[in-house]
Every structure is written in structure tokens, then in C-alpha cells.
């Protein structure tokens, strides 16, 4: 079954591994992620000032194109998910703004596409039960810390992918994959996001809090669902290691990479070589590479 899919700019370049591993795992459970034939950048941030309509035209364009290829649109990157889903809500609920925006685009669109995250596809369309059945290589004994970040969850009333302050969708997924999910307090705290460009100090500190919180709670590996989180966590780790005594860096990978592995996809299609902190040794001694 084909599902219309919006990769977004980053997944076509820096985060290719995210994209590949997702397509692979999708295939393993009988989906094909059909990339939109026409798409553009979503704008990478949802404008927080409601009067800033021009910033909504880019995502609106994406949605309008998606509409031509189906009624749902699947995303992977948390930021794209956030921007598209919220823009879609505006277009659906606010006739006046819709008028202005479609005016800009010179194209009609009414917000009727359903924007879903790949996690939702697995949980709601397929069901973690089915995922469990499809597992070839259970991630036995692997302690996985799932990092949600902000954009996947907030604002809750708009995103609504999971429980406001205590989401479990990723943990449930990894339980289904046979892994041992690790809950850690900072899993829904911010990583520093775009401040990477402007204020590394803050990013190091926030990402640091995330990683130490994960490791302190026993995570052997941290998974993300957003290239920017991925980048910030990977980048900060060396510094944390140098500052916090007794801190040993852990691999940070996209959740889809472990998913693909569990579903029995070949290790080299999953882009583990692209990760800054090599996960293979860990996976090896968990006996997951044989």
C-alpha cells in the first residue's frame, strides 16, 4: 500500500539515513512511502505570530500538492510534522486566513488533508500489534531512551499525537520491537533547536541535560524523530563527555534505524555509518548484528 510521504529538505541531504531507514522499515511492514512528486520546504518553523500569514504559504503549498496525491500526508521530521499540521489546522478552521493564503498561492486548498507522523501510521493505521508480528530481530535487552523533543508534541491541542505531559507512543513502539524502553524526565524538554546557529552555549546545555537525563536513567542508546534534535544531541555529546566526569557518550540514532533493524532490514541500508556516535559496537554486543 502506498502512503503519500513528505520528506522535507533535511531528509534529502543531511538526514538521508532517517529517510532511507524509514522507507526500508515501511517496506518491511507492507507500506510504500510514495514521495510527493511536487514539494518544497515547509518553512522549518511555524510562525508564532498569528498575523504572519506569508510564512504559511510555503507549507500551504506543500499541503495543496499533497491533496492531489491523496487525503493523508505522512511526515517523519518532527518540525515538518509540526509546521504542516498546524498550518493545515489554520487553513481548515480559519476561512478568512485561508482566503488570504490561497490568494498568495493562487491555488485553492481547504485543509482537508490529514497530516500524520510515521509513528501514527505505525500505531493507528497498522497497529503496534502488527509491528510486533513483523519483527524479525527483537531488540532484546537493548535499553532505548526515546527523545520526543518539543515539535512532535506541542502545542498539545494542535498536535494531539499523544498524552500531553507523558507521551508513550515511542516507548510502546520499542516495547513492541522487543527493546526495553527507558523513561527519562527530559524526554520532552527542548534540545536548543535553531539556537544552534546563534547560541551554541545554550544548545550544549539543553542537549546535555537531555542526554545526561537519558543516560542517568539507564539508556544505552537514544532515539530521535527530528534531524535537528539529532544534530544537536550528537554535536553536544563530546563536550558533555569532556565536562561531566564519568559520562560515556551513547549512540544517538533515528527511531527508524532501530525499527528497520528489528524488522530485519539489512544493516547497511539503515545508514548507521552516518551516525556521529557509532551504534554498531553496542548493537553487536547485544547480538543484534549477527
Amino acid at each position: 500500500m502506498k502512503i503519500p510521504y513528505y520528506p522535507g529538505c533535511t531528509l534529502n541531504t543531511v538526514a538521508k539515513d532517517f529517510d532511507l531507514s524509514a522507507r526500508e522499515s515501511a517496506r518491511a511492514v507492507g507500506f510504500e512511502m510514495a514521495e510527493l512528486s511536487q514539494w518544497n520546504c515547509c518553512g522549518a518553523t511555524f510562525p508564532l505570530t498569528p498575523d504572519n500569514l506569508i510564512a504559511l504559504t510555503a507549507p500551504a503549498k506543500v499541503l495543496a500538492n499533497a491533496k492531489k496525491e491523496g487525503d493523508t500526508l505522512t511526515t517523519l521530521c518532527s518540525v515538518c510534522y509540526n509546521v504542516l499540521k498546524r498550518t493545515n489546522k489554520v487553513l481548515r478552521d480559519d476561512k478568512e486566513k485561508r482566503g488570504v493564503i490561497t490568494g498568495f498561492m493562487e491555488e485553492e486548498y481547504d485543509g482537508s488533508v490529514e497530516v500524520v507522523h510515521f509513528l501514527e501510521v505505525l500505531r493507528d493505521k497498522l497497529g503496534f500489534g502488527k509491528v510486533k508480528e513483523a519483527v524479525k530481530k527483537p531488540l532484546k535487552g537493548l535499553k532505548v531512551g526515546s527523545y520526543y523533543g518539543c515539535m512532535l508534541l506541542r502545542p498539545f491541542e494542535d498536535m494531539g499525537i499523544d498524552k500531553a505531559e507523558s507521551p508513550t507512543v515511542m516507548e510502546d513502539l520499542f516495547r513492541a520491537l522487543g527493546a526495553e524502553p527507558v523513561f527519562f524526565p527530559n524526554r520532552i524538554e527542548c534540545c536548543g533547536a535553531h539556537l544552534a546557529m546563534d547560541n551554541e552555549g545554550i544548545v550544549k546545555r539543553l542537549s546535555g541535560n537531555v542526554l545526561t537525563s537519558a543516560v542517568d536513567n539507564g539508556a544505552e542508546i537514544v532515539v530521535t524523530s527530528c534531524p535537528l534534535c539529532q544534530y544537536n544531541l550528537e554535536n553536544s555529546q563530546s563536550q558533555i563527555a569532556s565536562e561531566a566526569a564519568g559520562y560515556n557518550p551513547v549512540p544517538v540514532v533515528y527511531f527508524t534505524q532501530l525499527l528497520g533493524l528489528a524488522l530485519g532490514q539489512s544493516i547497511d541500508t539503515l545508514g548507521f555509518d552516518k551516525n556521529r556516535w557509532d551504534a554498531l559496537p553496542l548493537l553487536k554486543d547485544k547480538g543484534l548484528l549477527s
Partner: protein
Amino acid sequence: MPRIGVFVCQCGNNIADTVDTKKVAEEAKKLPGVVYAEDFKFMCSSPGQDAFREAIRKHNLDGVIVSACSPHMHEKTFRRACSGAGLNPYKCEIANIREQCSWVHHDKTKETGTVKSIDLTRMTIERLKKNRALSTVKIPVNKRALVIGGGIAGIQAALDIAEGGRQVVLVEKEPSIGGNMAKLSETFPTMDCSQCILTPKMVEAELHDNIKLYTYSEVEKVDGYIGNFTVQIRKKAKYVNEELCTGCGECWEKCPFKAPSEFEHGLSKRKVIYTPFPQAVPNIPVIDAPNCPKIQKDKCGLCEKVCGPKAIDYKQKDQVVTEEFGAIVVATGYELMPNERFGEYGYGRIPDVINGLQFERLASSSGPTGGRIKRPSDGKVPESVVFIQCVGSRDEKKGVSYCSKVCCMYTAKHTKLYRHKVQDGQAYVFYMDIRSGGKRYEEFVRGAIEHDGAMYLRGRVSRVYERDGKVVVQGADTLSDSQVEIEADMVVLATAIVSRTGADTLAQTLGIGYDKHKFYNEYHPKLKPVETVTAGIFLSGTCMGPMDIPETVAQGSAAASKVLALFSADEMAREPITALVNTMTCNACWDCVVACPYSAIEKDTVKDRQGNVVRWLAKVNDGVCTGCGTCVAACRSKAIDLKGYTDEQVYAAINAF
């Protein structure tokens, strides 16, 4: 031809100054049907009254007009005088020529005032011609009271009514009376033990000759009206014969099965046959059927074996009793908002995050820890406890918009209890505002801070999480404008007080109003604080909104005194100003039923000899009808009229305009 008398009052100079009363009388006399018209200096004075009665008899008048002050002043006076003179009081009408004429038109030539007075008098005369003799409605009063809810509010009301010598039935849905107050350890600001002051009242209620207890029971249906309610009460099966049971406790000693204790808010387990707490009233256990293997799949049956008096009865069924009452007191109390709504505070996930009532149980000497403060997770005595106020209160987004009123005080109390029990323990309190209005309340809070060393932080907590065996609280202190992080051993949430689940359904059963938070509406927030719009039903305690024990008790007594006042006469007289249905023209569209704010209109039937329903029609219940007339204007077929304000009367007045 009617024989109408007109009495124009000069009210000293109050009217005479700007109205030519003599002229008014003369003009009145010219009207058909007016056989007598005079003006007097003071109609309300006793000479005036005598002349009034005298004239009625002498000219055998069949209707009288008094053109004088506002009917709100002396209508009653003159109507009483009428009955004194053998004339039906409702054949007397007042034309208001003082408040609404002489006093508001200062024209000394008296012209305007006189003209207007003549008009007003004329209109009233024409109206009067259509008046019918009416007699006050008499309703018999059944002098038994029903009290719904066995918390302190209900107990207080029941005791006061019983002391007043009236029969009371006290209905409680739990196995024991006592309510939330029974769970409290000490009470602010006096710090006397809650159970020590409550249990005597509970026992008194149980033993009082005039009080009948229905525990483990719920009100299902309410019919009738003030003085005459018929109520269906479901007595849930206890599986224990109350007559035989001696409360010896063998059964719950021996029962091998356990379930989380509702009374201890899950902090401990109770047996499956149980009384909620040691001082339970009545001291008779109930079997928690869903958890009992005997009742579910006929296994065990130990309690039956060990029961000396053979009181256990697995076959027992729910029992529905119907009783008659003259008045009802609603005292159903409150619940705490489920904190699961506040994921960021980890309630339900983090065992050492508890709510206010759970802390009360920890602090209570009859509680699961025997009054020693131990945290639920590992029984360790907490070296520091963080108390978070306004959890759900004053929170439009995730909670309720209102202030729960008692949290500021009980949190201060908690910090004191904690300090008294854990000498070197440190209490932290996150507050937004401290609301300590009340006798010795502010001093009490200051005491917690200055004497018992509680650290008060002005700010809200953003999140609570676990870190190696500690509960980390991350919040702000806006006064030092800094983020604060506290590694505590336990966190206590002062969660919002909310109305009982099902409060709305009960309100609908009773026909009383409730607000958007499902708290019950008093008739008037200031002047009728314990009455409801439904005559004969009274309110008491937190079913109306958050309040503390003193207020609740005061309201219990207030409601009781209202009931006793109602019961002081065998019959209650009501103004005959009620709606009347014309059975010939009513076409049963039920618009009136919808319009009536008092649900005073019932759907009635006409039957033929065989008893088959031939047609439906509306029937007004004089006991409930307050005579607002809304139904009259709503009626399509003009089949309802309002006695004292009939269409005829009103049109007569308009036509005389």
C-alpha cells in the same frame, strides 16, 4: 351591577399637596358601578381603617379601591381589613397615587397629579370589576425530612431537625456516614482532631430516636412538591443482615481477599468484606461484590462460616423503598479533581506524589501509617516535603476557573502537622496568593511560616520528576525572580475541590439548578443562601461550592432551621395567585410545561368510564406554582390564565387607559 367603593387617601399632605383627592373621588363616583367614593386624611390609620370597614358594610360593597401609597406598602393591611368586614381580600385593589404620582410630579397647581391619579384610579376600578374572589391555597405538610448525604453538613442538618422533634431519614451512599471530614487528621485553625469532634456526632445521629440511617443507599426518584415529596431510595445490597450483625468483626478479620481502600484513597488495602474505617457508623460491614469470589464464582464463603449470628446473606438483593417527606436537605459534598490530568506533576506515575486527602490519611493516627509520615514508595520518613497549591484551581486551561478556598489553610495545616511529626523535616509551599480570610486564619498561616519554619515560595511548579530516589520539583519563586529546584522526598498536591460525579443527575432528579461546575445554585446568593428555587428543597455544605467546616456546619443548621420553620404548621398557606388551566380548551401542546421555571405543570389525562385515556391536558400544581404567569403568555390556545392577573383583568385596565 357591581357595588364598588373608592377610598382616596390624602396621606396627610404627601398626596394632597400635588393631588386634588376630593376631585379624584368625585370623578371616580361618576364611573358605572361605583356606589361610594370619599377621600380621607390617613386611610392606613385606625380611624381610616374603621371608616373603611364601616363603609364596606354600610354600602355592602362587593369591591374596593384604595387610591393611596404603593401596594407594596399597605395592600396587605387593606386586604386584611376587607376580610375583617366580610369582603374577600382579593376584591380589594390599590391604585398607587403616591410613590408613582404625587411624589414624582411636583406641580403645585395639582393639575398633572390629579389627572394622573384619576387615570390610575379608573384603570384600577375597571380591573377590579373583573376580580374574582380567591381563597389562599392550603397545602398539608408532611413533617418528615430527608437529608441526602451523611457528611458533616448532612449530619448537622439531620441532628438539628431531629432535635427539633421531627423525623429525619439520612441517606448516605457509602457504607458509613462521616463523609470527607472523617478522613481529616486535624482541623485548622484550632488543630483539634477531626474524628474526635466528628465521631460523637456520628454516633449521636445513629442513636437518635428521630433519625433513621440509610447507609449504602442512594436517592433514585423524587416526586411531588413542598410538604409532599415522594422519594424512592435504593438500598444497595450489603450482603449482611443489619438486624443480625453485631459488628464483632470476625468476618473482616478472617476474609482472605483484599482491595484498595477507598477511604484511605488507595494508600492501603481493605478486606473484601469491610467497614471503611474503625469508627464506622453503623459498625456493620458490607461485601464489595465485584471483588468477592464467593458472590462472583461461588468460591470461599469463609465470612459466612465464621459469622456467629449468621448475618451474612450472599443472596441479598438491592431493595427500593418509597417514603414520604415534607422537605429535603441536599448535602452531597465534594470530591477532589483527578490529578491524572496533570501529567507534569507525575501524579499516578510517581508514587511519592500524593494529594491533600492522602496526606490527611498519612497524618491521621487512625490512618495506614498510624499517623507517622512515611512516603508511599518505600515507607521512608521524608526529610523534605513540597506542597503545591492551586493544582487545578484557578486554572482555566486544564482545571477549573474558581479558587478552592480551603487549600491555603489546609496546606498551612499540613506543614504544621509535618513539622510536629518530623521535627527536622523541611516543608516547602508553592503558592500564588495566600487566602486566609477568617477568624485566626491569617495568624495560623503566619504561624506555619514563622513558628513551624515552612518555606513559602511565591510561584507555581512547572514540573515534577524522579531522580535517584528523590522527587525533583522544578518551579519558580517570582519574588526573588529565580528558578528553583528542590530535591524533595515527597510532594503533596492541593488539588481542586470539584462537585461530586453525578451531581448533575441528582440535581435533575430533584429539579434544582446547578452552575457550569455542577455546584448547586442557592435561591439567592446573599439573602437565600440555603434555599433552592424549588420550594421545600434546601442546600447545605460543599455541594454548593468549596467551603470550610465552620461554614458547612453553619449551613447545615441554617437548612435545618428552614425545615423546622416549614414544619411548624400543619398546613402552609400560599398566595392564591396561581395559574389555572381551562380543561375545555387545553390542547396539550405542552408549551406551558416547557416554559414553567418551576416544573409546576404536569401532564394529566382525562379517562372515559372504561378508564381509557381519551385526552391529555396540562394540570397546574398549586403547591409548586409561584404565579409568574410565564405559562399564560406561552399558551397557544389561551387555555391557561393567572388568578389575580387574568387576561380579562389586564385588558380591562388597558381598555380604561
